[in-house]
C-alpha cells in the first residue's frame, strides 16, 4: 500500500499551528458582546426532597440578572437512550428531588463570575434529607431507599448475552476458576472543563458554543429539553480541550446557560469549576465482577460465565451502553464457544457513571486478563501461549453478536513474545505482565434514535482547487480533523494542505453522531471518502471528455495530477481541470456527498482492532511501591492513516489507563467524592510516565476507509490488567480491586508472608 501519497505520512495536525501559538479559540476563550456569566448551585445532599427554593435574596444582589430553578424549565427529563423514555431520567435542574451530591438545583447569571458565585450563597434551599444508598450491593436490597420512583430494587437496566450451552460446557472442563474483582471509578479530567456559551436571540433561535464530542447529540437533546426544532439550534464545537467520553451528553453548563439566556436574550457563559468537573459530571463506571472460567487441561477455554453489578450513580446517561459493552467485551479477544453474561446497572446516590474511553472494556479487560493469567498458571501454561490457543482470528463470528473480519491478534502475540524474550532475565522484583485486548470501531446500536445516517459529509471543491470538507464529526483533540482531511486528500488526489475542515458545527455540517465509541475514523472516514470520491468522479468524467481518451483507459488523480492510470505521464493539472469543470457546470462548485451507516454487521460494530500489551514493573517489596518501567504494545488498527496520531493515542492511553491501574480513584464518604481537585486526584505526570514502545502490525480492514479501523479507545483496555499481571510476576501477589495501589500490594505481601509461615508450621 506504499503508493499512497498522503495516508501513512507523518504530518502536522491541521490545527497544529493554532495550538502551539495559543491562537486557537476554545469555548473557554469565547467572549461575546453583552455576555453574562453563570454559576450553578448544587445539592450538598446525596438524596433529599427539595421543599422550597427561595431566590429572592440572590436576585436582589447588584449585578445579578437572572436566577433560575427547575420551575423555569419544561420539567422534561433527558437521556441519551432516547428510544427508551423510561431511561430518560435526568432533569438537570432538579424540581422535586436531588439524587447525588452535585445535582443542580438553581443557576444564576450575573455580570461577572464573582457576582454569580456570591449570589449562589444567597439562594435558600430547604431540603428534607432522605435515606441514601451508595453501594450497588446495598442498593439492590429489598429495604434500600428507592432512588427513582417505581424502579424496583434500584435496578436501572439489565443485560443478558448468551451463546452455546454454558452449563453443559462447564461439565466438560478439566479446570474451573471462580474469581471476584472490583473495578474502581475514574475521572476524565479533561484539561478544559465542561463549558458553554449559550445565546438566545429575540428571534427565538439558540446559538451555542460548547466543548463537545458530539454537536449533533447536544443539538438534539437541547431540542428535546427546550421543545424546539433542531434547526433553530446551532451548536458549534470549536477546539475542544479533551473529551474522553465525558462530553457527548447534555450537561449542566450547557443546559443552565441556555435556560438563563432564554430568560434574558443575552449570551450566558458557564464554565464548570474543576471541583464541579470532578463531582458533577459523569465518570467511569465502578463494577463488581464475578467470573467463572472453565478450560481443558491443554488450555482450551470452553466456557465463561460473567456476572456484573455496576454502580450506576443517580441517572442512566450512557451507563446502559457501558453495561452492554462490558458484557460483550468480557468475551474478548477469545473464541469462547459457550458464554453467558448477566449485568445489572444499579442506581445509587452518587455521581452518575457513564462513558469513558474504553467504555466498559477497560474493566472487563482488567478482570478477564487477570483471570486468564491465573488460569494459565493453574494449568502450567505460558500466558502468551494460552492467549494464542484461544485468541480470535480473522473472519471469526462471535455467535449471534458480531462478525470479525480483520484481526491481527496472533501477530501481536508473536511480537510481544519476541519482546519478552529479548528482555531476557529480569532483575529481582521486576515482572512483565501481558494483556490482550480488542475494541470496536464505532457502535451499530441506535438507542439515540437518530433518523439520520450515522455519518455524513459534504466535500466542495472551490475554483482554486482548494477543498472544503463539511462533517458533523468532532475533533476533541484526538486529531480526527487531520485524519479525515488525509482521507479526503488521498481519495481526491490532492495534498493535505489543499483541504480545509469544517466540523462539529450543526449550522453548516451534515449530522454525524460524533466522537465516541472510536467511530470517527471508520464511519466519518467512510462518509468523507465517499463524498470525495463523488467529486473525483465528476472531475474524471470531465477530464475524460476533455482529453478524449480511449474508453478502455481508467483515469485517476494523484498529487494534483489527473492522469491515465496505465500511462501516468499522460494527464492534466488538477487545478486546470477544476477551473474548467466549474465553468462547464454553469459556475457551480464541484460538490460530493457521502454517508455511512453500518448494515448487516452484527449487533456491535462493523470492525474491531486488536492488540497485546506487556507492562514491566519494578516492585519495592518493603513498601509495596512499584514503578512502571516500560509498556510495550503490539497493536493493529488496520491501515494506519495518521501515524503521529496513532502514537499519540497509544502513549496517551497508557498515561490514562496506567493511571486507572496504578493510582486514579474517586474514594467517597457517604456519596461525597473526597478528592475533587487535581491536587488530590492522583494522575500520571511526566516523571511517572513509563517508557513506551510501539510494535505496529499491518492489517487491512475491508469495511474501513483505505482499510483503517479504530485506534483510540481500545488502547485504554489492556494496561490495568498488564500491570496487575506484572506485579504478580514480580512479587507473587494478585490484586483483585483497582487501583493497584502500593498499599494493597504491601498488604498482600504481608498476607502472603503470613500464609507461607503458616504453611511451614
Amino acid at each position, binding site marked *: 500500500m506504499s503508493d499512497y501519497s498522503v495516508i501513512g505520512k507523518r504530518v502536522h495536525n491541521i490545527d497544529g499551528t493554532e495550538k502551539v*501559538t495559543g491562537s486557537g479559540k476554545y469555548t473557554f476563550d469565547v467572549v461575546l458582546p453583552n455576555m453574562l456569566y453563570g454559576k450553578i448551585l448544587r445539592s450538598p445532599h446525596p438524596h433529599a426532597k427539595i421543599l422550597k427554593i427561595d431566590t429572592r435574596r440572590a436576585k436582589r444582589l447588584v449585578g445579578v440578572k437572572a436566577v433560575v430553578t427547575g420551575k423555569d424549565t419544561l420539567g422534561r427529563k433527558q437521556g441519551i437512550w432516547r428510544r427508551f423514555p423510561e431511561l430518560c431520567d435526568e432533569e438537570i435542574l432538579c424540581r422535586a428531588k436531588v439524587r447525588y451530591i452535585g445535582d443542580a438545583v438553581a443557576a444564576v447569571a450575573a455580570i461577572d463570575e464573582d457576582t454569580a458565585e456570591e449570589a449562589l450563597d444567597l439562594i435558600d434551599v430547604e431540603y428534607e434529607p432522605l435515606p441514601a444508598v451508595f453501594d450497588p450491593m446495598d442498593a439492590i436490597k429489598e429495604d434500600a431507599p428507592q432512588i427513582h420512583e417505581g424502579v424496583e430494587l434500584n435496578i436501572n437496566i439489565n443485560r443478558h448475552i448468551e451463546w452455546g450451552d454454558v452449563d453443559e460446557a462447564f461439565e466438560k472442563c478439566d479446570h474451573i476458576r471462580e474469581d471476584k474483582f472490583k473495578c474502581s471509578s475514574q475521572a476524565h479530567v479533561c*484539561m478544559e472543563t465542561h463549558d458553554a456559551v449559550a445565546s438566545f436571540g429575540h428571534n427565538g433561535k439558540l446559538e451555542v458554543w460548547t466543548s463537545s464530542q458530539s454537536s449533533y447529540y447536544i443539538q438534539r437533546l437541547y431540542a428535546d429539553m427546550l421543545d424546539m426544532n433542531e434547526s433553530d439550534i446551532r451548536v458549534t464545537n470549536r477546539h475542544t480541550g*479533551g473529551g474522553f467520553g465525558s462530553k457527548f451528553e447534555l450537561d449542566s453548563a450547557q443546559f443552565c446557560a441556555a435556560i438563563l439566556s432564554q430568560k434574558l436574550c443575552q449570551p450566558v457563559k458557564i464554565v464548570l469549576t474543576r471541583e464541579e468537573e470532578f463531582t458533577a459530571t459523569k465518570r467511569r463506571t465502578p463494577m463488581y465482577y464475578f467470573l467463572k472460567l472453565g478450560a481443558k487441561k491443554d488450555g482450551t477455554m470452553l466456557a465463561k460465565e460473567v456476572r456484573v453489578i455496576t454502580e450506576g450513580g443517580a441517572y442512566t446517561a450512557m451507563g446502559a451502553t457501558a453495561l452492554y459493552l462490558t458484557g460483550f467485551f468480557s468475551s474478548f479477544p477469545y473464541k469462547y464457544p459457550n458464554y453467558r453474561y448477566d449485568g445489572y446497572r444499579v442506581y445509587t446516590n452518587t455521581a452518575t457513571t457513564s462513558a469513558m474511553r474504553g467504555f466498559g472494556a477497560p474493566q472487563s479487560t482488567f478482570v478477564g486478563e487477570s483471570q486468564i493469567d491465573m488460569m494459565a498458571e493453574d494449568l502450567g501454561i505460558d500466558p502468551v501461549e494460552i492467549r494464542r490457543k484461544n485468541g480470535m482470528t480473522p473472519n471469526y463470528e462471535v455467535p449471534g453478536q458480531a462478525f470479525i473480519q480483520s484481526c491481527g491478534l496472533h501477530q501481536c502475540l508473536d511480537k510481544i513474545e519476541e519482546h519478552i524474550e529479548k528482555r531476557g532475565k529480569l532483575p529481582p522484583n521486576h515482572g512483565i505482565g501481558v494483556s490482550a485486548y480488542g475494541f470496536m470501531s464505532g457502535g451499530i446500536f441506535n438507542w439515540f434514535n437518530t433518523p439520520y445516517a450515522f455519518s455524513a459529509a459534504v466535500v466542495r471543491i472551490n475554483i482554486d482547487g482548494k477543498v472544503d470538507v463539511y462533517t458533523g464529526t468532532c475533533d476533541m483533540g484526538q486529531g480526527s480533523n487531520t485524519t479525515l482531511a488525509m482521507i479526503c486528500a488521498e481519495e481526491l488526489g490532492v495534498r493535505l494542505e489543499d483541504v480545509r475542515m469544517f466540523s462539529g458545527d450543526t449550522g453548516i455540517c451534515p449530522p454525524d453522531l460524533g466522537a465516541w465509541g472510536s467511530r470517527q475514523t471508520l464511519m466519518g472516514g467512510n462518509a468523507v471518502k465517499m463524498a470525495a470520491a463523488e467529486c473525483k468522479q465528476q472531475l474524471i468524467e470531465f477530464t475524460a471528455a476533455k482529453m478524449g481518451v480511449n474508453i478502455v483507459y481508467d483515469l485517476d488523480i494523484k498529487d494534483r495530477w489527473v492522469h491515465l492510470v496505465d500511462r501516468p505521464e499522460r494527464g492534466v493539472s488538477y487545478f486546470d481541470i477544476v477551473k474548467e469543470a466549474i465553468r462547464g457546470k454553469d459556475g457551480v462548485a464541484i460538490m460530493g456527498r457521502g454517508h455511512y451507516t453500518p448494515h448487516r454487521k452484527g449487533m456491535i460494530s462493523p470492525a474491531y482492532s486488536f492488540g497485546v500489551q506487556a507492562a514491566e514493573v519494578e516492585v519495592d517489596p518493603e513498601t509495596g511501591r512499584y514503578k512502571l518501567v516500560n509498556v510495550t504494545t503490539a497493536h493493529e488498527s488496520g491501515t494506519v492513516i495518521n501515524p503521529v496520531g496513532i502514537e499519540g493515542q497509544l502513549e496517551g492511553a497508557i498515561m*490514562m489507563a496506567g493511571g486507572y491501574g496504578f493510582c486514579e480513584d474517586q474514594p467517597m464518604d457517604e456519596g461525597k467524592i473526597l478528592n475533587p481537585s487535581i491536587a488530590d486526584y492522583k494522575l500520571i505526570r511526566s516523571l511517572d510516565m513509563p517508557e513506551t514502545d510501539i510494535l505496529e502490525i499491518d492489517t487491512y480492514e475491508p469495511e474501513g476507509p483505505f482499510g483503517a479501523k479504530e485506534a483510540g479507545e481500545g488502547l485504554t483496555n489492556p494496561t490495568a490488567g498488564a500491570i496487575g499481571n506484572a506485579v504478580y510476576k514480580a512479587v507473587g501477589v494478585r490484586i483483585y480491586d483497582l487501583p493497584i495501589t502500593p498499599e494493597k500490594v504491601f498488604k498482600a505481601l504481608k498476607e502472603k508472608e503470613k500464609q507461607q509461615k503458616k504453611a511451614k508450621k
Partner: protein
Amino acid sequence: MKKELKFKVNGQPYEIFVKPKTLLVEVLRDLVGLTGTKRGCSSSSCGACTVMLDGMAVKSCSVLALQANGTEVVTVEGLAKGNELSPLQRAFLDHGSYQCGFCTPGMLMSSTALLTENPRPTKLEIKEGIDGNICRCTGYNAIVRAVTAVVKGEYKEAK
C-alpha cells in the same frame, strides 16, 4: 481600591489598574486579552496557566497580578518571532506533542523556561521541567521527544 500594575507582556509595556485580588492569569486573559494562557484547575496543580516571569516559569493562577509589578512576562503568544515559530513550537508540531492543545501553551512555556535556564538538559531534567504540567492526551513522551530534538540542535532559532 484598585492599584496600578506596570509591567511588560511579550515586550509591550502595560499600565493597568487592578484590584489587589486579581490574579496574573486574569490580567493576561481578561485585561490584556491574551487567551493563549489557559486555566485548568484552582489548586496550582495543572500548569496550564504557566507563563515566564522575568525568565522563569510560574503558574500565573498562583501569582497576584500586583506581584508582577515591574516584571517582564512572556506568554505563549510571545514565543514566535513575527511569522517564524520558535524551535520548540516547530518541534512540538513535528513530534505530535499536543492533541487537544489546552495544556500546550503551558507546556511550551515550561519547556522554554527550562531551555533558557539549562540549554542542555538530560531526559530526566526535561521530565522534571514539565512535571508541573498535566497533559491528559499525549502521555508526555512526545513532548519529551520534541524538547530533546531541540536540545540536540535539530531546530535552529529564527533570525
